[in-house]
């Protein structure tokens, strides 16, 4: 039976209160690490554990931490990416509502490893109730001496600030998050320089996803080997899959990396709702290229999905049934990226709007013969040419939808 690293205790009543958390063995990793381990040791352990980012990009967390220069006169910052805007994703909401102290513990360990004394949790503005719960947990942790000055008498200081966003998907992109946190429009920055050298307020900054950090206490307590055993040699640990759509049991499912998509849908999520047949699955959040019904027999890990022409992304699985019109799906996708484009760079700003205009016409019954080809061409013109990855995030799913479901979509065009 695989270990549920993060969600195992989700059912425990009042887990979000520090009293309960401590009873369940909470803050043991901090108590082990801060007095007795060196920051470099923790960093090494996280590197060995192959903990890849669970926000969408999948970049190894330990490597990212290692990029931060140690001997700089400027303060270093940690930004927790709790913006969770990728459609279909809600796992971070669960972690922060049910298990905020686990996240805080992960924050403490990460900050200690890199030499950070101020951490911001950038939480999306819509998660108001969750933000309040987080703030409550931060206050409790402070009261009990796990945050603030001289934590556990070890001389390590750490302040955690909960910062609310205000409705912009693009602020989930790490440099746009930094811009937003600095009080500006969420316009992504050019890279290089990377946030590890020039980030928040020009200082070295680490940005990690909520789930990523929530895995760190386990790694510190049980070691990299244990973590790797939970998943695959190259992808350590578990993933929390957000399953939604036409399944019987939508919700979060924490499973080892490498679990098959078919298994997730049919064994864990209860299979299709009564009378529904599976038509397509989005495996990693809306920005992940869509899979047809005959493509879902594959393992859910970073590499396998890339091989299949898609991506693990935020591990959000959306299940679509035969009765759903793919034109409706296309419309939802096109509208989402048009609405969320920050507008900074030409291809995304104009491209997402142009595509949405064409799709709107198709929905209104005024599709023209060349529309699908135009959409495919426009999406290809956005790919690889934008300032930030959102251009690709917009182009790839639209491309895969238009290509894999061309026949159905073409029915909406003039002959």
């Amino acid at each position, binding site marked *: 039976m695989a270990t549920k690293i993060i969600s195992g205790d989700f059912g425990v009543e009042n887990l979000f209160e520090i009293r309960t958390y401590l009873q369940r063995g909470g803050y043991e990793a901090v108590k082990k690490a801060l007095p007795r381990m060196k920051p470099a040791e923790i960093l090494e352990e996280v590197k060995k554990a192959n903990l890849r980012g669970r926000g969408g990009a999948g970049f190894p967390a330990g490597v990212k931490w290692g990029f931060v220069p140690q001997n700089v006169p400027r303060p270093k910052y940690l930004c927790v990416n709790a913006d969770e805007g990728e*459609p279909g*994703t*809600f796992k971070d909401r669960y972690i922060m509502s049910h298990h905020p102290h686990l996240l805080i513990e992960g924050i403490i360990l990460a900050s200690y490893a890199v030499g950070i004394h*101020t951490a911001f949790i950038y939480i999306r503005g819509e998660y108001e*109730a969750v933000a309040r719960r987080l703030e409550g947990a931060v206050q409790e942790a402070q009261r009990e001496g796990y945050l603030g000055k001289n934590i556990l008498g070890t001389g390590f200081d750490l302040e955690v600030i909960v910062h609310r966003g205000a409705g912009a998907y693009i602020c989930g992109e790490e440099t746009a998050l930094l811009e937003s946190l600095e*009080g*500006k429009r969420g316009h992504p920055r050019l890279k290089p320089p990377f946030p590890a050298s020039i980030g928040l307020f020009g200082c070295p900054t680490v940005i990690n996803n909520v789930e990523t950090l929530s895995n760190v206490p386990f790694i510190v307590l049980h070691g990299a080997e244990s973590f790797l055993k939970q998943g695959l040699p190259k992808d350590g640990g578990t993933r929390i899959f957000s399953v939604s759509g036409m399944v019987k049991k939508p919700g979060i499912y924490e499973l080892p990396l490498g679990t098959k998509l078919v298994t997730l849908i049919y064994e864990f999520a209860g299979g299709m709702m009564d009378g529904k047949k599976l038509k397509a699955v989005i495996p990693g959040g809306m920005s992940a290229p869509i899979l047809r019904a005959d493509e879902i027999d594959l393992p859910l890990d970073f590499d396998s999905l890339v091989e299949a022409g898609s991506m693990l992304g935020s591990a959000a699985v959306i299940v679509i049934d035969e009765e759903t019109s793919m034109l409706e799906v296309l419309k939802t996708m096109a509208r989402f990226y048009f609405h969320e484009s920050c507008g900074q760079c030409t291809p995304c700003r104009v491209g997402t709007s142009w595509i949405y205009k064409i799709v709107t016409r198709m929905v209104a019954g005024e599709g023209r013969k060349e529309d699908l080809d135009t959409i495919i061409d426009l999406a290809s013109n956005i790919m690889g040419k934008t300032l930030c990855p959102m251009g690709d995030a917009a182009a790839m799913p639209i491309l895969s939808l238009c290509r894999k479901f061309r026949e159905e979509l073409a029915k909406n065009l003039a002959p």
Partner: protein
Amino acid sequence: MSPAYSPGLLRKIDELIGRYPKKEAALLPVLRLVQDEVGCIGPEEEKFVAGLLDLKPMRVREVATFYTMILTRPQGRYHIQVCHNLSCTLLGATTVLDYLKDRLGIGVGETTPDGKFTLSTVECLGACEMAPCLMVNSDYHGRVDRQRIDEILAGLK
């Protein structure tokens, strides 16, 4: 100077600004605080916040118009935001929206004449397991059907 703002708000803003290494970083949270009290962010509010943070009012306007949740026009007392992204659409968001339009007698982006309800559509709220989902001010409601909608509306005084 803004006599319209409560001392409680000004205190909260002060405390908020104090948390950040640079004042400007507090802009977005401060705007939301002011909006919670005043209802929306107009030129007066932009000037006020600009003064608090030593920014030019234009900088505040740039930010205020960028974020969906910063409202630059007056809204009803209850802002009903219906998610129309993928999972919610799959599970019937269109029906939810149509029913609300019917019950409230307004279209998307409009406010009821008595100023009680504003109806909007929003993108993914991150609650797809309870699709179809909507948000009333900052409260989430999931698995909404006609009955739930009736209950929710009834509870909003």
